[in-house]
């Protein structure tokens, strides 16, 4: 086995979730031609486990509410800011809700972005990547239902 290129590309959480979810749907639509051949199924358990765990994890993050249109618009809007590719990726994955949360994502943020720009950026994120956090408060268990992130997908200006 040879590693030809370690980082051939970076994937956003949105891209990984989309990729794994599409494969999931395909499996349901095309049942195996020869019905589960015992040995094959067992050795693909690792694949099944890791896929389900990654999907579960990603669904609890902001990428679950993202669409390719949103991501495209977001990338275009970021062009006017002094932000690196890696930082843009983190903004997309983490989706900071405030200047305090924005702070760790951009190196030397106060040297590169003015207070106004930082506020603009947070506002931009709110506007272009709408997301409602699932309610995790144990006290509300059984009462409040988590806000459905998909409902907000079409609510962008």
């Amino acid at each position, binding site marked *: 086995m040879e*590693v030809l290129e370690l980082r*051939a590309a970076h994937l956003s*959480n949105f891209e990984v979730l989309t*990729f794994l979810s599409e494969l999931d749907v395909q499996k349901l639509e095309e049942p195996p031609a*020869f019905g589960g051949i015992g040995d*094959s199924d067992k050795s693909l358990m690792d694949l099944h486990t*890791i896929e389900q765990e990654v999907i579960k*994890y990603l669904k609890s993050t902001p990428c679950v509410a993202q669409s390719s249109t949103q991501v495209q618009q977001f990338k275009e809007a970021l062009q006017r800011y002094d932000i690196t590719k890696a930082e843009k990726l983190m903004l997309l994955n*983490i989706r900071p809700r405030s200047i305090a949360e924005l702070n760790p994502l951009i190196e030397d943020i106060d040297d590169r972005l003015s207070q106004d720009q930082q506020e603009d950026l947070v506002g931009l994120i709110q506007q272009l990547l709408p997301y409602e956090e699932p309610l995790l408060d144990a006290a509300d268990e059984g009462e409040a239902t988590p806000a459905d992130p998909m409902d907000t997908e079409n609510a962008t200006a």
Partner: protein
Amino acid sequence: MFILTLLRDNIRTHPSDFSKPRIESLTDELNKKYSNKILHNVGLCIRVWDILEASDEIVHMVQDGSSQAKVTFRMVVFRPFKGEIMTGKVASSHPTEGVRVTMDFFDDIIIPPSFLQAGSEYDEEEKVWVWKYEENDLYMDKDEPIRFRMEIEEFVDVGPVRDGVDEEKKVAPYSLVVSVAEPGLGLLSWWEG
């Protein structure tokens, strides 16, 4: 946190799978071999993204009749970069090791005491780390969502081993040391609003 790694490997297909379309059987064999496993100095393999090239098959007539091909492919790999910010959940607290974090599909993440927020102490009664900030006691309870920065990654060559299995092996083949020692990091509830 996810990358595409370009790899090349020799893949054997057993005659029982010869009726499968070629790309599908090669993909299955690659996934069987790599999914949910740590590749030393590469990261945690999730699954095959695509196959770019596969050489002509060589058939091993005198063994089991399986065919072998050299395959060039891209794999989805979990490999955060240094300095990357990620989220997870608090898994457990330990007085000397610090706070262990889980990301559902990956668990070998530790925040050593030196990388907790300044003013953090281990509470012997509650058995939990606490950030004492301006007269507030902020407990780092289990299952709380937490945001951290990747600082140090460690690969240990333990031979072929599955991530998550073989609990007796104390050494994790791939582990991350992370930090929450700056404004904006730590429990998400600390920075709300």
